[in-house]
């Protein structure tokens, strides 16, 4: 089976790996979450004790585990693209499945953490720390879910129509998936560690 590979010069400003539209989205998302983190530390400075006590109510072990899961999942995603570029479609499919399993595990753990918080009456209106916690992790979780949908679609395409598949399509999905990594790598220390 052949995969359509395109000879693209990524040094061209209009053709970053994953595509220019995806990279515009990535930059905008990073700015948005960056502003959110800025707001979090600003309010944290106003009420340091409240933020410290609230941070202690988060489960750092789950946060750490979720970080590790996303990193491993990102590694599998990178290998998926590498395998696809080298024409090893079966390997690419396997790596993609592992990537998706990582995503599902992240969603499962996050859901468990949310239930834990809600049963402890730590909802969005509890205090400013938890307002930021719910908004930013919830918004991030929405991105992970969208990423999973893109990955499922990519997997389906590799499985059913590999000849019509272009590597750039998968690269775009991969870039979106890695964006979820990037955002989480900034969110995790800001919410779970520093206060």
């Amino acid at each position, binding site marked *: 089976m052949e995969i359509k590979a395109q000879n693209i010069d990524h040094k*061209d*400003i209009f053709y970053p790996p994953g595509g220019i539209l995806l990279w515009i989205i990535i930059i905008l998302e990073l700015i948005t979450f960056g502003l959110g983190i800025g707001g979090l*530390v600003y309010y944290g400075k106003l009420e340091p004790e409240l933020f410290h006590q609230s941070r202690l109510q988060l489960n750092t072990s789950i946060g*750490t585990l979720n970080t590790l899961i996303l990193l491993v999942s990102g590694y599998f995603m990178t290998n998926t693209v590498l395998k696809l570029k080298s024409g090893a479609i079966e390997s690419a499919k396997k790596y993609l499945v592992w990537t998706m399993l990582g995503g599902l595990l992240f969603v499962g753990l996050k859901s468990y953490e949310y239930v834990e918080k809600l049963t402890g009456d730590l909802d969005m209106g509890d205090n400013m720390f938890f307002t930021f916690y719910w908004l930013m992790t919830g918004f991030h979780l929405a991105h992970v879910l969208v990423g999973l949908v893109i990955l499922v679609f990519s997997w389906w395409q590799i499985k059913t129509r590999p000849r019509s598949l272009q590597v750039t399509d998968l690269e775009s999905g991969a870039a979106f998936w890695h964006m979820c*990594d990037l955002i989480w*790598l900034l969110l*995790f*220390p800001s919410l779970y560690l*520093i*206060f």
Partner: protein
Amino acid sequence: MEKKNLLILFILIGMTQVSAFLGVFNLGVVNYLTWLVMGLAAVKFFLVAFVFMELRKAHFFWKFATVLIGLLVVVVVGFWA
């Protein structure tokens, strides 16, 4: 390439463990630890962007924009938190 990526993954996992360990301390009081944790986060951020996302192959503009945003977040958190 795959071996290199695996090595990067182990480095990322190690740095995450160190960050989680540092979180045991009250970082709001010990400011240099906040910088250390955010510094580790920045290194992880850049490793994922440049190695896993292949940003190293992209035009300077995309590298600059990504590095700038990552550093801005780290500096803002480091100074304010």
